[in-house]
Structure formats: structure tokens, C-alpha cells
């Protein structure tokens, strides 16, 4: 629960209340901002994408492994196809890096080739194909030489999942939506099958419709709305990230498929080359009863590492610079729930969003937009809707000429604060001045990356802390890493004798 408690939202009457600031809530808010309606998105954490949406590998899946009949399958190709345009509009890096699902079992090649042919025909995944072990090595020379063949999925891509979530939300805000962080839904009043009131730690609001995009907590929200017909079964997954130096070992997404020991829904994990240039290894999948158990455990890292080293023997544990854990929010049926309330009429559930939830998000958001507008009735288009979001400039990727021009306009772009990732003071201040301001060390880190390099903030974190303090015009000891209780320093060293 957030620490703040006030009446900042008391009495507000949004047309749409979106509960949850992950990829689902953020993308829906943006699509709804195409309409002249009052949108309020509430998120209980101090920033967007702090749970599953900020703790996954960022893979945009091809969907070749999904079976017809599921909502996952229904949305995957549409979502995948939308990524290029959506990311371009929102100013987010996206790359179709391609993917190789590798097999050691040579005998399975005819079977798999048949499977791939079938999928291509049924699902129109035109570019996927089976390639030989030799061809695989030609394309990815650092892979293990033991693979007999692989499925190649050129439509697979990589995106920064929290970067996209933030971009979606910022574009929604620029187009008139309101985003409130540190805001948790504590209860609802349901009368005659309709939600009439929603209480939060910032006051009571009176929305016309509610969109439940609350991740692992979507079942609690459904229960508050008298409309709980599903349950969430959390599953943890841990990923490791390597130094960018190891990034040269491969350029795509890769995983091993072992037919002999394949289980229903186990995530085998893989290795992928992220948009930032690191390698990401993982995730594993472990059932958990703790919805917010984000701690890491050495066994997860070791297990995943040993498995993935089989794909790429050159990987070394010494390349790892950090690791993190996320918790998936699957339903018991392992499929999405994207539907209007069953007992309560003014709610739309967007729940059970697990992999490939990131890939399907753009397509799901369009459908939910339709459902919500229909539910509201009488909504008019927003004439000033602008789908384009201008991203914070990445100075390090500019040419010398462009860089020089930027510095001439604003010398802060010439002062490098994070030297591992080459991030300037100008970019950090841009992050603090963005449409959704999160003036914490982690908020800045998510948006412009200081602290994500090899020294993990050793050199830059005091400098970033100082810049945030100056921006807030408050003492250094009031700057947080993330949540309210996460202060970094305890005041001046001479505080013992001062009047504090």
C-alpha cells in the first residue's frame, strides 16, 4: 500500500477508470485517448511497469507455438504485426531480431517441418521455416555446434517492455488522460449490478466504467466488483543480464526445445539480445503463493544459466552484471481473460495476461477500446489526438554533428553523468520533465538508463541523486530510490549537532 493518503481524487467522475499501470492499462489508456472522454488510470506503485511489465524479457513472439482456440492465439499475429508502427509512433526502439528454436534431436526434423508448414498455412506465419544445423551456425557462429536443426522465426522482435509501457502512458497523458501513481484501489460499491463508487487512498471516484488491468491483483479487483469468475496462480521467473561485451555473441532470440522432456506450460527460457545490446538469459518458472515475491535466488540463476549455456558455450557467469525476478499472473486455464463483466455490467476484465501479453498488448488494446466506447455510448472522437510521442534523445547514438547541435541548444547534453552508458545530464533532466514525472533514482534509471551499466550506478548514483534533489528543490536525504521508504541518505554528516 502506498504511504500517501489524501483526497487528491475525491469526487472525480471519470468516464473510464483504468486500474493498473502495466502494459495492458497503459496501452488501453492510449487507445481510449483517441476519444473525447475523461480517462483516469490509477497505479499503486510509484511508477508504471513496476511489476510483470517491467520484469520480463521484452520478447515480441511469433506465436508459432500457440494453438487455435485461445485468446493468446487470437491476438498474437495481429499484435506482432502492429509492433513496427506502434513503436515508431511512440518513439520506442524495436527490432525484429529473429528467433531460433534449436533442436538436438535430428529424428524430429520431418515432424517439426510438417508442424511448421501447417502453422504457416493456418496462421499465415509466412516467414517462419526450418533451417539446418549448418545454416544455424552460419547465422549465429557462437551457438553450440550440436544442434541438428532449428525453427527460424524472423518475425520475432525485441522491445524494452517498461520503455514501451511508459511511452504508451505518456502519449495517453499528452492526449488528455490522467495518470495517478501511488494510488491503490481499496474498495468498490456495487449497486444493482453496476459499480457506482471506487475508493482509493486518494479519495473516492465515481467512474462510468472500470477496466480491470491489475495484473496479479486482477482477481482482488474482480472480487471488489462482485465479478470474480477467475483466479490468478502466480509464477515467478528470474532473468540475468550480461555485460554489453557479451552482447556480441549473438544477435537474435534463441531457445532449446527438448521434445523428450517437454511439459505443458513450462517456460524453458532462452537467451536474447536486447534492444540495449545486453544478453538476457532466462526466465525460469516457479509456482509461488507470493504475488510480489521479487527477490532473486541463486538456484534460479544457476539452473537457467546451465541450461542456456548449452545453446551458447561462450557464455560465462562472470559476464552477468545483474539479475531480476518478475511474477507472472496466469489464470488457472492459462489463457487471457478479455471480456465484459459477467455479473457486473460496467467492468471490462483484462486479466491473466502472461506471455505473450507484451506481444498481444497493442491488438488487445484496440479491442478493449472498442468494447469500452460501446459500453459508454455516445463518445466522440478526440480531434486533437496525436499518436506521435517524441522520445527523450539518446545522445550517445547521434552523429557528432547532431550531438553538437543539441549541446549548443542545451549544454546539459554535453555533460556526461553515467559514463558506463554515456548518459548526459540533459537526458536525466528530460526524464524528470517528462509527462509522467517520477523523480526517483529508479524512475530516472527506467527512462534514461543511468545505473544500468557495468558499474551498476557506483559512480553515477550520487550524481543522479543530486540532480533529482536539485530538481525537487529539496534536501538530498529526501530523494528516494523508488518507494517512499527507500531513502538513500539520512541527512547531513554533521546532523548530530544541527537543529534538524
Amino acid at each position, binding site marked *: 500500500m502506498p504511504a500517501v493518503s489524501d483526497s487528491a481524487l475525491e469526487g472525480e467522475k471519470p468516464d473510464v477508470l483504468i486500474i493498473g499501470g502495466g502494459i495492458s492499462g497503459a496501452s488501453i489508456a492510449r487507445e481510449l485517448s483517441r476519444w473525447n472522454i475523461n480517462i483516469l488510470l490509477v497505479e499503486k506503485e510509484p511508477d508504471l511497469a513496476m511489476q510483470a511489465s517491467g520484469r520480463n524479457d521484452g520478447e515480441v513472439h511469433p506465436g508459432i507455438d500457440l494453438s487455435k482456440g485461445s485468446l493468446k492465439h487470437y491476438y498474437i499475429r495481429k499484435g506482432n504485426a502492429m509492433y513496427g508502427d506502434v513503436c515508431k509512433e511512440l518513439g520506442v526502439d524495436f527490432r525484429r531480431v529473429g528467433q531460433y528454436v534449436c533442436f538436438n534431436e535430428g529424428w524430429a526434423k520431418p515432424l517439426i517441418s510438417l508442424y511448421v508448414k501447417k502453422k504457416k498455412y493456418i496462421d499465415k506465419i509466412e516467414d517462419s521455416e526450418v533451417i539446418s544445423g549448418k545454416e544455424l551456425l552460419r547465422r549465429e557462429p557462437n551457438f553450440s555446434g550440436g544442434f541438428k536443426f532449428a525453427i527460424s522465426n524472423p518475425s520475432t522482435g525485441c522491445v524494452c517492455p517498461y520503455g514501451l509501457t511508459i511511452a504508451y502512458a505518456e502519449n495517453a497523458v499528452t492526449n488528455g488522460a490522467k495518470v495517478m501513481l501511488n494510488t491503490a484501489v481499496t474498495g468498490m460499491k456495487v449497486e444493482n449490478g453496476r459499480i457506482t463508487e471506487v475508493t482509493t487512498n486518494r479519495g473516492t471516484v465515481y467512474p462510468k466504467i472500470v477496466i480491470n488491468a491489475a495484473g496479479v491483483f486482477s482477481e482482488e479487483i474482480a472480487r471488489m466488483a462482485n465479478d470474480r469468475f477467475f483466479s490468478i496462480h502466480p509464477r515467478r521467473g528470474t532473468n540475468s543480464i550480461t555485460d554489453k561485451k557479451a552482447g556480441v555473441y549473438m544477435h537474435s532470440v534463441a531457445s532449446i526445445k527438448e521434445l523428450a522432456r517437454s511439459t505443458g506450460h513450462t517456460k524453458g527460457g532462452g537467451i536474447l539480445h536486447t534492444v540495449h545490446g545486453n544478453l538476457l538469459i532466462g526466465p525460469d518458472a516457479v509456482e509461488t503463493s507470493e504475488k510480489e515475491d521479487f527477490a532473486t535466488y541463486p538456484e534460479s*540463476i544457476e539452473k537457467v544459466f546451465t541450461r542456456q549455456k548449452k545453446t551458447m558455450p561462450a557464455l560465462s557467469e562472470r559476464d*552477468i552484471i545483474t539479475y531480476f525476478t518478475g511474477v507472472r499472473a496466469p489464470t488457472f486455464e492459462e489463457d487471457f481473460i478479455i471480456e465484459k463483466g459477467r455479473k457486473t455490467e460496467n467492468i471490462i476484465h483484462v486479466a491473466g495476461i502472461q506471455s505473450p501479453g507484451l506481444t498481444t498488448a497493442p491488438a488487445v488494446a484496440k479491442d478493449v477500446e472498442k468494447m469500452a466506447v460501446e459500453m459508454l455510448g455516445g463518445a466522440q472522437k478526440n480531434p486533437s489526438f496525436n499518436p506521435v510521442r517524441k522520445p527523450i534523445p539518446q545522445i*550517445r547514438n547521434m552523429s557528432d554533428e547532431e550531438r553538437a547541435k543539441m549541446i549548443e541548444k542545451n549544454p546539459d547534453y554535453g555533460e556526461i553523468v553515467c559514463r558506463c552508458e554515456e548518459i548526459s545530464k540533459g537526458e536525466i533532466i528530460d526524464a524528470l520533465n517528462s509527462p509522467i514525472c517520477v523523480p526517483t533514482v529508479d524512475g530516472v534509471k527506467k527512462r534514461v538508463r543511468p545505473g544500468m551499466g557495468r558499474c551498476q550506478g557506483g559512480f553515477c548514483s550520487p550524481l543522479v541523486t543530486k540532480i533529482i534533489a536539485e530538481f525537487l528543490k529539496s534536501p538530498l536525504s529526501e530523494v528516494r*530510490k523508488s518507494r517512499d521508504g527507500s531513502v*538513500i541518505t*539520512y*541527512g547531513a*554528516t554533521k546532523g548530530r549537532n544541527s537543529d534538524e
Partner: protein
Amino acid sequence: MSNYYDVIVIGGGPAGLAAAVQAKKENASVLLIERENRLGGILKQCIHDGFGLVRFEEKLSGPEYAERFIDEFNSLGIKALTLTFVTRIEKTEDGFEIHVTNRSGISVYSCNAVILATGCRERTAKQVFIHGTRPSGVFTAGTAQYFTNILGQMPAKKCVILGSGDIGLIMARRLTLEGCEVLGVYEAKPTPSGLTRNIHQCLNDYNIPLHLSKTVTRVFGDDRLEAVEISQVDENMKPIPDTGEIVKCDALILSVGLIPENELAENMNVTLDPGTKGPVCDNNCMTTVPGVFSCGNALHVNDLVDYVSESGETAGRAAAHYSKKERGTIAVKRGKNVLSLVPQMLDLNSDLGKVRVYFRSLKPLNNCRLLVKCGDSELFTKKYAFLRPPEMESLTVDFSQYDLNENSEITFEIEVTGE
């Protein structure tokens, strides 16, 4: 105004300052580039004393030591660009092009020789596999030192220190002086890593316990650190399961090693020595790439800043006279019981009369001797009562007296004599 300099030094800490001053004294035109806003490097925050015992026979604080060099630097009129970051170095036909960015824009400087005095960074919590949550309150010792001594802020009220290296010991004392409760210093090795006198001045003086063969395995706390889990380790420094004890604290300070910073070197295809994690160098501090020199902590992690200044001077002198003359290098290999050794090459075409050699023993050894061989024949030996890995040794060798040629194989090894 020309952007050409004979020597460009990258890094304005003690190594870079010494290199720039020496190069200037040798009549080279010199430019120094520093990414922070002031010169002095890490010494600005090392406000404790103990610096300069070898060089000046005085016990100076870090700033005092650095400012002696800064004063000389300024009186020689050497140009320095501060708050300036090197984005890339390109090799040209005549030398090197250094591309930089700062608040004035983008500039390119060219030079005949470049000296990399880029220092080192600290090993992180993730690199020693500390698991658990991600609260605030986990600092590497250098970062905690920056908060305390530069920003004047308390990073902790009640802390645990992991690592008995000098930085951890110094911070134990520093934080205690500022009113913090230091619950203990934990060290995964069976012997302490820092200088013995620091164990006494920093821990014993303040009754701070030192626990050996123990390490931190987990951290707890959702927002700010609340506790750490300490486990015993075995002889391979691996945590022993079920030996965890919980210690409540609000800060974990890590002093678990330094790693030389060599991104620029690697981008120029300079060969690195996996033993030192710094460039392979000859007796003039020149790397495997002619015209590229390395000194200070970027070359290898030092214990005494006096040796850092020394290597800076060697590099500065050689860079000032660098003339693209053909080198005749032979390897200097480390043999039995030698953990690291600098220089790793000798240039037979240079003056070998006073070669400064620095080495560390692989493990604590008593009553031993250093044995320097050429092939199978012994060149010379030196006796040592004791050698410890945390205390780097130095010696001056006159290699010119030996009849060395391009087939000579020099080896340094240490054997226990037990006398």
C-alpha cells in the same frame, strides 16, 4: 588554436597528473582530459591519511597528496579539460584522434601518444551474487565514501561491511567517527585483505569485530535495507547451506574488489592480461598497441598511491619521447606463486637499466624467495620474510646487465625456502 598535442592524458587522478607533469617536464606539449569537474580523481574523497609514506616520507591525506601534483600541474601551465568525456579514440596514420564531448560541444584532438590513466571501478553486489530484494541502502564502499566525504551525507545509521579490503576498513572507521554503528566487517577469505595497520587503526581501535570465512548471501527489505543474511563459507569461499544468520541493519557496504577500467583500451584492441585485468605493458608502460600507454589503477590495481605516481611518471616520460621506433619485445612471464606481474614485456631496444617491477604473491607465504630466471638459468633472487597478496611488492631491476635477446624467456616465480 591547434588541437594537436604530443601527448594526451586521459584521466586526471594521481596517475594522469603524474604522467602529464612528467611528459611536460620532458618538453612535450600535453593535454589532460578529465570527466569529473575537478582534478584529483578518487583522492578527492580519500580524506584519510597514509598517502605518500614512500614518496614523501609524510603521512598525507588523499587531497593533500593530489594537490601537490595539481599545484605542479598548474605551475607548469598544462592545459586540462574537465567535465569532458572521451567518446572514442581513433588510430590515424600519424597517431591518434581523441573525440570528446563536454558542455561546449564536440571536439576532436590529435596526438602522437595517448596515456590511459582511467583508474578502476568497484565490483558490485550482483557480481558477488548477493541475492534477495532490491532495497536502497546497498552501497559499494567508494559510493558510500562519496556520499560521506563529498556530499556530506550519512549513508547509514547501522551498517554491515562486506570485505576487509582497505576501502572497507577505512569506511568502517569513517562511519564510526560520524556516529554510525558499524556492526561488523565480514570477509569471505580466511585472512583479511587490507593492510595490517588498517585492521588495527580502523577496527581494533573502535572495537569493530572482524569475522573471517563469512559472507553476505541475501538482503532483506522492500524499500530500505532491513537486514542481511550472513553465511559461513568453505575453503573455496562457497556459502555453506544452513549456516545463515540474520543481522538487522540499514546499510550494507561492499568492499569486494576493484576492476581496472579499460573500455577505451579494449576498443583499440589493446591486449589485456587476465591476471591484472589491465593492459599487457612493457617496461615503459606502453601497451601492445604502439603509442598507447597505460598507468595507475587502469594498468593494475595498486595498494599505494606512491606506485601509481611512479607508473604515471614512467608512462609520461616514455610517451613524451615516443617516436614510433621499432620495439624488440620479449615476454616476462609469471611462474609459480605469482598472482600478477607488471610489466609483462621488456623492450630490448629501450633502456633496461632501471626497470620497475611490481608483483603480488598468489597466497600468503613466509620465508620465501623471488626467483627471476631466463630460460633455465637464474638471473637473480631476492629473499622475503613474508609476502601477502594484498600487499603488492616492487623492485628495481637492472636488466641491461644480462645478455638478453629476442629468444630470451624471462620468468618470475616465488618459492618457499623455509629458512
